[in-house]
């Protein structure tokens, strides 16, 4: 626990001091993706369930938040709440379906469900098709804090991210989290001990979906945009990549992964399709030689969980 406390303090210090040297918008993007990956990691790293459709939660919450804030004129905090709630509902529906199959099928089903939603959003009138919902108002948080000010926005995103992170941390070390890990390690044994494993997996899925939604809702407010990019399967692949590189099943891995991948994409953006090639190469290298990920390797080195 002590090492994790130190790591947590370092992480907070980084996000507090980094805006002095790095662009705050870039850092806010990192935090949104870090929260997204933390949510995803809860499912794969601790529940052993690989969802290949997590973009549907990011994108759905983004669209719902953007629509609520722009068209319905919701105050910002309610718009974010509404977006997150939509992903929560979507998590319940898709979770109830996907949980009916195991392992590899689970990945294919979530991918197919996300693709179905992609086509739905492509055709639905309220999403603006290829243009997306643009110029979403940032508004004032609780009617007080003007989010048009970049530092107010930064503080809000940082608090949302840290809140989400601590929640995931709390869940991992709760009795619920321990049962989840037991199921990942040996499901028949968990069943024989009397746990309703399907219910545990379903709950983990819904929590993960909701938190991914929170990330998407916040992202829509930060960038004032909800677009098809966030529901496309490449986005689902990206969150897998972030988590794999950072370290599946570690607490801090998704944050480190998000920092590395988003930085890389920023620098390689002008290279066009080569970004995809580099992403693919990282996948292959990670799977073949580096399965613990960055944080996992460090944790292994110091022999303490991180």
């Amino acid at each position, binding site marked *: 626990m002590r090492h994790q406390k130190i790591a947590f303090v370092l992480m907070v210090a980084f996000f507090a001091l980094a805006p002095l040297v790095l662009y705050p918008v870039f850092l806010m993007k990192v935090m949104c993706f870090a929260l997204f990956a933390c949510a995803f990691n809860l499912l794969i790293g601790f529940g052993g369930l*690989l969802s290949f459709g997590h973009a549907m939660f990011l994108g759905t919450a983004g669209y719902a938040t953007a629509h609520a804030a722009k068209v319905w004129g919701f105050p910002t905090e309610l718009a974010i709440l509404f977006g997150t709630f939509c992903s929560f509902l979507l998590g319940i529906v898709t979770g109830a379906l996907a949980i009916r*199959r195991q392992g*590899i099928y689970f990945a294919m089903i979530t*991918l197919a469900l996300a693709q179905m939603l992609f*086509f*739905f959003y492509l055709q639905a009138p309220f999403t603006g098709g290829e243009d997306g919902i643009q110029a979403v108002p940032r508004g004032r948080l609780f009617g007080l804090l003007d989010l048009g000010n970049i530092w107010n926005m930064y503080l809000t995103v940082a608090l949302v991210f840290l809140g989400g992170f601590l929640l995931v941390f709390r869940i991992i070390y709760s009795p619920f989290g321990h049962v989840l890990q037991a199921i990942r390690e040996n499901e028949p044994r968990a069943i024989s001990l009397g746990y309703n494993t399907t219910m545990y997996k379903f709950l983990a899925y819904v929590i993960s979906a909701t938190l991914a939604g929170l990330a998407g809702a916040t992202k829509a407010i930060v960038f004032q945009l909800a677009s098809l990019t966030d529901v496309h399967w490449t986005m689902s692949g990206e969150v897998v990549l972030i988590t*794999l590189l950072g370290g599946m099943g570690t607490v801090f891995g998704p944050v480190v992964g998000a920092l590395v991948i988003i930085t890389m994409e920023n620098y390689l953006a002008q290279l066009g*399709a080569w970004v995809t090639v580099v992403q693919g190469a990282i996948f*292959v290298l990670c799977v073949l030689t580096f399965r613990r990920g960055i944080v996992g390797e460090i944790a292994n080195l110091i022999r303490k969980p991180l």
Partner: protein
Amino acid sequence: MTEIFGIPTQALFGQLLIGLINGSFYALLSLGLAVIFGLLNIINFTHGAQYMLGAFCAYLLLNKLGVGYWWSLAAAPLIVGALGVAIERLMLKQLYKLDHLYGLLLTFGLALIIQGVFRNEYGSSGQPYPIPQELTGSRNLGFMFLPIYRAWVIVVSLVVCLGTWFVIEKTKLGAYLRAATENPQLVQAFGINVPLMITLTYGFGVALAAFAGVMAAPIYQVSPQMGSDLIIVVFAVVVIGGMGSIMGSILTGFGLGVIEGLTKVFYPEASNTVIFIIMVLVLLVRPAGLFGAQK
């Protein structure tokens, strides 16, 4: 003009034909996925990229070397299949003892690399590929015009699918294969080279995808993205059919193609999503898939 349910027959049969064509590709690809999954326990995410490679192989053979459609139909599956063998030997082989999810992640990464390289080279626009001389033109069947190339695709796909089914279900080689799917250690103990069988099976599955790619080249444009959306639909097809049965994959593939074609006639808005909706319904009613057995 004659009509059925208020739809001109020409349009109806036209869409049915397109449905059968799409169904041919669904069947060929899901068959390959099922064969690979049976023995390797890996979902081959690269399948879509390998289908695209098949089409590009034919395109490059024609434009760089002047090799025509008929030779490509044999050469492209061999070339791409050999590439598949290399992938299996160098990479997939290391993952058999690990969680099956790693196979999915690795093949996903490979698909990104292959598609990215081709997108750099050819951009997003499609390249045309001519229909071979012998198969151009169409025939008037009385109720519709049937382009000969499309009829060819359907017939050949059926023959290849049924041939694969025959080999796996009715021959000695197929019996070894099915036995190795059930219990590889035991089959190995009987003196059969199981690792070699695994490699060749992966190569064969990949070759099937490339074969489908060559056949698709004259119908769809040859483009780097042609496989990436298709593979997701094929995953849904596989979930609907269940991967336990070869014949099941074939029937589900063709059946869903036809249903998708009919949706285009009666309710075009849903034509993109109908297969996914069917997947949801099947999951609700028969979670193991239409032809699958719950493990």
